[in-house]
């Protein structure tokens, strides 16, 4: 354990905390998880390099959300290994896990904002909890909100006073405010109507283009995947059906699920 922490500390000496030159930001090996007798993940391998954007998709119930939640141990995996910034996440202590979670941004499907707090306080909360001075935290929170197009009076509204798209953009601002090494997106557009989807997708594309953060995005927005993803991973029944550059996967699908998505894209 001490060596793991040492590795994490060494990693922080580089340009971005939690990264090592040439090393993957995230490496998932043989990850397995069952809910009762139902397998959710059946030995998944995944690797994400610094600045890389990986789109994960697949039919409902194939384990996409479980994969993301296992990475930050919101769900405890049954077996396998998750390496982030050189340390094994599955064997970290609680305090060490908190440090890892603060380096990973997580955007949920339903935004998961704190209802009693304003948008600004929602974004500042993880910064202050991580030890940032309140004034500096709020300044960074304003910058993050500005980055997703929510500057001005909107920042002082509570979640119930915002539209679905605005709520999701506040959630994105909250995830990017701590300047994470890795961002995990769990179907951020799934609960939005088509007009609001584009609002959020535009923000996501802007962040991808900035290219300073590795991203694992679970989504069914295949056109967005074609435009933004460095790599597409198709899951089926808790395992990786196939993966590769999105254009290659859709051009020559090797799996049944790949062929289904190709037909979907063509329709």
């Amino acid at each position, binding site marked *: 354990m001490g060596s793991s922490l040492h590795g994490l500390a060494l990693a922080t000496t580089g340009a971005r905390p939690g990264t090592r030159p040439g090393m993957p930001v995230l490496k998932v090996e043989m990850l397995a998880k069952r809910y009762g007798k139902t397998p959710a993940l059946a030995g998944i391998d995944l690797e994400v390099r610094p600045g890389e954007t990986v789109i994960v998709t697949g039919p409902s119930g194939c384990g996409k959300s479980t994969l993301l939640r296992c990475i930050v141990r919101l769900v405890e995996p049954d077996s396998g290994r998750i390496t982030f910034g050189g340390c094994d996440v599955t064997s970290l202590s609680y305090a060490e896990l908190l440090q890892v979670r603060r380096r990973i941004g997580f955007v949920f499907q339903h935004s998961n904002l*704190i209802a009693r707090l*304003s948008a600004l306080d929602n974004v500042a909360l993880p910064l*202050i909890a991580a030890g940032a001075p309140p004034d500096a935290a709020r300044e960074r929170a304003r910058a993050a909100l500005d980055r997703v197009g929510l500057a001005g009076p909107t920042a002082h509204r509570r979640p119930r006073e915002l539209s679905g798209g605005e709520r999701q953009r506040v959630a994105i601002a909250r995830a990017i405010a701590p300047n994470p090494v890795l961002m995990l997106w769990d179907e951020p557009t799934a609960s939005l109507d088509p007009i609001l989807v584009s609002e959020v997708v535009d923000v996501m594309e802007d962040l991808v283009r900035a290219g300073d953060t590795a991203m694992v995005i679970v989504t069914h927005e295949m056109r967005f995947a074609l435009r933004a993803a460095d790599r597409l991973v198709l899951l089926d029944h808790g395992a990786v059906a196939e993966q590769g550059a999105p254009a290659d996967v859709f051009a020559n699908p090797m799996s049944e699920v790949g062929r289904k998505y190709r037909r979907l894209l063509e329709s």
Partner: protein
Amino acid sequence: MRDKVAALRSALDLAGVRAVERAKAIDEFVRQMNPAATQLARWKATLSGLTGRVSGIRALLATGRAGVVVSDMLDATNTVLAQMQSMDVVGMREAVREVSRDLGAVRDIDTGSIIRELEYIKASLPNLRDDEVGRSIRLIDRYIGGEVIPGDSLQILVDSGVDRAGARMAAEKRFGPNVRVYVSPAGVVEPGVRSQVYRVLHEARATVAALVSFVFSLLVLALDHAAIVSAIREFQRGKAPRRRARNIDAGSAYAMVVGAAILVPVFIMSGAKVPYFGTGHVAVLGAAIGYLVSTQSERISPASGEEITAGMAMGLTHTDIMREIVVPSSRPGILSLLNRRKVRFRGTAD
């Protein structure tokens, strides 16, 4: 006639001799019995005089009524002697010793200390008159009376064959020097009304205190801790359940421990008592209340799973999540009141 007078004379002489002998016996008895010495001395003087009078009676024989008078006097003397002989000297001595012992006990009372204590109380209430001091002491006595009831008495009935002295010694040994023990023959059993009223009030107060403790603990658990139980369940949601604790999850275990930890001290501090109900039973009851609240925690004070999950994903500690997310959103209670001073975000924009 002459013969009869001669016989009477000899009888009187004999009676005179007997009277003298009995006077000596009485004199001896009087010397032995100090408590009745005065009376006996008087009788001795009377009997001594009687001897002289008997001798003088000889001169009165001519009257013919002297014999009857002497006979009456002898009968009276015999009656007195019979009564004195029937006196229970040993019993009298024991009775005197009993009185002496009780007087000794009275003498042993440290009246000086009592007077000093009263003076101290009076000095501590310098602006009160004597009757006000008395009322104050009675007031104090009434409040203290919750635990120690002044004038309380306990009647122990024993079989008629039981040795009274032994029973008394056993009672004194059992209750110690602060309790006075009186032994009396069996009579009508009269319960002390004052002590009975005190006892009934005391028991009623203890029962009411027990009910209040119960309700208080239930409210604290429902208002303050139901949300925490819900949050603990959210914390545990992603973890594999432990086989040993399959029926009692972490939230229920927390509620049971907190229930016991709240009810026991509240029960003790409020002076609550329930017959046949010890501290262990109270702790079990508190745990049961906690378990009951834990089963309804999601209905009483649901915690937002989405908000808690977001807090966990952001790297907030459980304490931060409780302080910033769970408690401020829970029902108003003691915990949310205390939390207001610690919460960093008060729910208002800057």
